[in-house]
């Protein structure tokens, strides 16, 4: 086990994949000469050469579609879309090809494609660069969606994605690239579809993923000072969703607060809330709470951006609400 940053963990996994399987190659904007927009792919071009680390033109639709075609043709492409904000240009290839070719062909095709995207807000880069659209992707049958929150998961889930015969979308919150964590570089690939309890508790279940896990844990510490011990569940995988882990947690705590950086309306949190209502209605002592982004395109000014996004204080407040007024 060694301590490394999230970006180093991703790079380590990419390197391991490129070394271990000649079918793996990287494709995306500035992944090569530039070293990667977030420095994730730094050094890989030098190590593996331009055939396996390919800088693409700014053609999201075609290079993602080419990823689909290359996967059909026997390769194991890892396509990097610089951020989820630019993935909108590739939506047709994602929804109408990557997600549906298996089904439309009656099961003849598999698309073993991995797509990595940076996501999330908090760096004052304004509305067009601050989206969290994981929820949109989790809506689509035919693809899988993971959102690692720790360096160990960033490595483990990326390797799991490579072993998956279906398209897997990996969302890396841009605020996480610099965080540290213990990583076992010899560990086997992780399992897609399994959530992890990051902190045990009995007062409420705080259910979250990706960039909000850290904030949830901080909120849990604050609440613990007042004797309120919440459980923090890191979903890690949005599709497939570990519903049984969610329901098991709620069966223990009887209260739930979901933290999701997407906008509140039609958010992923709404899906989790609906599943809790369907499967855990009789366990609940209070309505399920949601802490999401405010209904506004993410603003530039810091105090505004901070107010728009889920924060520790908001999570603490939501937990107290769910305990206090109904308990």
């Amino acid at each position, binding site marked *: 086990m060694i301590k490394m940053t999230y970006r180093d963990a991703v790079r380590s996994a990419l390197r391991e994949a490129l070394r271990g399987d000649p079918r793996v190659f990287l494709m995306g904007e500035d992944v090569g000469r530039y070293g990667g927009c977030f420095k994730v792919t730094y050094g890989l071009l030098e190590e593996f050469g331009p055939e396996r680390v390919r800088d693409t033109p700014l053609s999201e639709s075609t290079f993602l579609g080419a990823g689909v075609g290359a996967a059909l043709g026997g390769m194991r492409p890892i396509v990097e879309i610089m951020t989820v904000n630019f993935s909108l240009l590739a939506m047709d290839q994602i929804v109408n090809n990557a997600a549906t070719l298996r089904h439309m062909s009656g099961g003849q095709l598999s698309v073993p494609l991995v797509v990595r995207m940076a996501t999330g807000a908090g760096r004052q880069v304004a509305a067009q660069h601050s989206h969290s659209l994981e929820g949109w992707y989790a809506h689509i049958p035919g693809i899988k969606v993971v959102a690692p929150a720790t360096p160990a998961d960033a490595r483990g889930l990326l390797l799991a994605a490579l072993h998956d015969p279906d398209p897997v979308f990996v969302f890396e919150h841009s605020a996480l690239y610099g965080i540290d964590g213990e990583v076992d570089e010899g560990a086997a690939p992780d399992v897609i579809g399994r959530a992890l309890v990051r902190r045990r508790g009995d007062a409420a279940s705080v259910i979250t993923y990706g960039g909000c896990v850290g904030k949830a844990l901080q909120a849990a510490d604050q609440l613990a000072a007042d004797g309120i011990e919440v459980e923090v569940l890191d979903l890690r995988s949005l599709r497939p969703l570990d519903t*049984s882990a969610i329901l098991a947690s709620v069966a223990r705590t009887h209260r739930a607060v979901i933290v999701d950086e997407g906008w509140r309306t039609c958010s992923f949190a709404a899906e989790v809330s609906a599943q809790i209502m369907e499967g855990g209605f009789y*366990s609940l002592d209070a309505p399920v709470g949601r802490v999401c982004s405010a209904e506004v395109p993410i603003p530039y000014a810091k105090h505004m951006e901070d107010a728009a996004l889920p924060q520790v204080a908001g999570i603490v407040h939501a937990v107290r609400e769910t305990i206090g007024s109904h308990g």
Partner: protein
Amino acid sequence: MPILTVDMTAGTLTAWRKRVGDAVKRGDIIAEVETDKGLIDVEVFTTGVIERILVQAGETVPTGTVLAVITEEAGTQVFVARPVPGAPVPAAPPAAPPPIAETPGRPRISPLARKVAAELRVDPASVRGTGPGGAVTRDDIERAAADRAQPPARPVEAPDRQARMRQLIGAAMARSKREIPHYYLGTTIDMSRAMTWLAEENLKRPVTERLLTGALLMKATALALREVPELNAVWRGAEAVPSPAIHIGVAISLRGGGLVAPALHDADRRSLGELMTGLRDLVRRARSGGLRSSELSDPTITVTSLGEQGVETVFGIIYPPQVAIVGFGRVVERPWVVQGRIEARPVLAATLSADHRVSDGHRGGLFLAAVDRLLQEPGAL
């Protein structure tokens, strides 16, 4: 009529391009049809002679309707354009239920049912649930509350709650007559002082606060029960338990037939004005179907008064688990002997039907005597 567009279910044949007797070959355009996408040509897929035209220009027909009959060269007739039914499509299998989480030891009861259970003082754990997965619902709680006071002799099938209530009460009446040894006492009360007082009192009150005779009767009954408490008891299987509070069940007839007797709570401690308000409220809610189940199960004794119907004397049937029922008739002018002389006085027949297991005629008589005495001092009520 051919299917020409994605969701076409009917079309208008706007023009025929061929006539009866014309030869046609495969691919020829034979007619024109107006669809929601515009005018589309209809082609034939066979070669032969048009024998009959069945749909005229301008007609709108559903898709699948035969438009014409063509006799092929070989003599076989072809119908334009009737689809041949194919193999039947499979039926839908039942949907799989979503995963459910169970907290062991925690009853399945909805928040709404829990609230109602608290209001009606029902223990949810004792109720059988009919909701999803055996969960306890509001209806289950209300049914349990109604059953607790008046368990039905036969299953309830009434379509509305009022009817169901009536059925429950009817069943209770039958059981009462079967199981309770009733004894009956009656007396006639001189109401002259009460009526005079009432008239004077009502002059002082605004119209909306005027008292009816019934309020005096309720109060007198309640205070009399303090003197003979065994008539204000609840029968519990083998013995009567006196009730600490006096809740008078007021028998109210319902429009459309039927009777309910909801409680006027703590009748002994309320003023005449409060009793009046309470009575009016009960009558209104009884007639609009707005009574609570608790109101039907709370009375410790019932008073039935049919004075308005013109009945002079009424002997009621005891509502179990009560042990007595008081009856009042109409106030009538009758000859009365006062110090040897006969004069007309307003009088009222008061009766008592009581459970002989709990009280005897002597105690019952004391009760009626107390009612009489109390009504002679209406100002003290």
